């Protein structure tokens, strides 16, 4: 005995494969509407008005369920427990899926920080010089450089890992205020720098550095006026 439309599962109603991606389901929904909507050429005279309404509401329900990732997952589990579809394989890397343009940078952020994190942290804890520098109320580029050298990290290493250009980092360390980038970029660069070196707390230290630089700038401005 074959199934009537109401007995089909949602994938069969929309005529998509159970492994279809979200955009394919959206397209299938569009096609289904095109077929079943009132006044559609393809289904002209095939259904009574009542049947058409019922089919449209089923299609709507199917789409609502499959469009949302959570409800779709629950529905998949239900189908799989009834043996109608294979249990969705735990897909490995989502290589085929398109990457949302707003997710790219976030994915990068989550990438593992350098492997020597632990050793850096222990060095920071042990070194008196570093705790002295970070405890001060001002933090200049020279201070940062000293910390970095104390930790034994090359500047090129930081440039490579943080993707901040090396000449920017050098300018920061040398306190060449006139060559520093705009404040908003500078803050970001310094944060990456601090994060790479595992210096805590990043927010506070970067704020202190920005204040120091601002003071330096003001002083320079005053000198020029004289």
């Amino acid at each position, binding site marked *: 005995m074959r199934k009537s439309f109401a007995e089909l599962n949602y994938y069969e109603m929309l005529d998509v494969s159970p492994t279809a991606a979200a955009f394919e389901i959206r397209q299938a929904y569009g096609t289904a509407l095109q*077929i079943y909507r009132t006044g559609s050429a*393809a*289904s002209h005279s095939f259904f009574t008005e009542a049947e058409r309404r019922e089919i449209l509401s089923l299609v709507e329900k199917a789409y609502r369920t499959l469009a949302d990732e959570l409800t779709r997952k629950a529905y998949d589990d239900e189908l799989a427990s009834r043996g109608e579809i294979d249990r969705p394989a735990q897909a490995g890397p989502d290589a085929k899926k398109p990457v949302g343009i707003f997710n790219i940078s976030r994915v990068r952020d989550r990438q593992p920080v350098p492997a020597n994190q632990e050793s850096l942290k222990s060095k920071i804890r042990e070194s008196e010089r570093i705790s002295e520098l970070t405890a001060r109320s001002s933090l200049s580029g020279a201070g940062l450089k000293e910390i970095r050298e104390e930790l034994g990290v090359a500047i090129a290493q930081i440039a490579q890992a943080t993707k901040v250009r090396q000449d920017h980092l050098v300018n920061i360390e040398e306190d060449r205020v006139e060559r520093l980038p705009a404040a908003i970029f500078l803050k970001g660069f310094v944060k990456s720098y601090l994060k790479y070196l595992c210096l805590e707390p990043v927010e506070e230290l970067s704020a202190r550095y920005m204040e120091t630089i601002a003071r330096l700038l003001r002083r320079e401005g005053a000198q020029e006026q004289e």
Partner: protein
Amino acid sequence: MAHIWPIGGGKGGSGKSFITSSLGRLSAGLGRKTLVIDLDLGAANLHTLVGVPYPSKSLSDFLQKKTERLDDTVVETPFENLFLISGAQDHFAIANLPHEQKVKTMRAIMKLDYDCILLDLGAGTSFNTLDFFLISQNGIFITTPEPTSIENVYRLIRSVYFRRIRYGFSVSQFKALEEEAIEQFGEGASGRPEFMMNVIARDYPERFRELQKDFDAFRFRLIINQLHRRDNPALGAHVCRIIEKHMNLHVEFMGNVSYDDHVHDAICQQVSYLDRYPYTKTAGELRAAGRQIFQPAGRQLMLQYV
């Protein structure tokens, strides 16, 4: 045995005869001995489309027993390998073919020795059309994208479906089934073979399996003819999907044939469209459709239930 392709479409003017003649020409052009039979009884005009405006013999010679064998009514056409059984100059009452005559004709068609036989069926859903359609599992439905035509083709498909169900039951059994279907699915179920099948599945499971097997073996196809530029080219696929999902009948979409004013010109000038305008889009689409029917899949149905 020849492969028989009944070509029907419900609505008149959808291009059945034009498609039949074109497919016949294409098949003959490949060196296959091809016969086109005009079964649009009472409104025959296939002969004009294949270049035989005044056929010397016709189907009525066979029906009125002027000739013994159907073979003797075959006329040659100007095209190599293409032959015709015309319906021209029929007796005026021929449209109402009596049952014995019909069975006799069907038997005779089955015995003809050709590589490919195309049946040009009339509009409407008379029992003649339905029975000739069910002679083979390779039937082709033709419709235009207009809702009127689509409506008629659905009507034809349902009628063919019903006709096939009807063969297996006596009049009283069928009537009982009909009443049961209406009782269960409400008024309107009498026109819906899919509901009828549900009832049969319950009452006659044995017959149901037989019918189901038969329907699964059907290789019906659909051509959307006269597709205008602004029509939806996916229409044919959609129609097939509806039939598949809601009627449990497999119909394969064979392709679109675009609308072309030159078809009208060629018919008016009584020349072959494919020869006069071979490089048009429409001609290309006809050739593509022709290629598909040269690999037939279904078998011929025997006549045991007629």
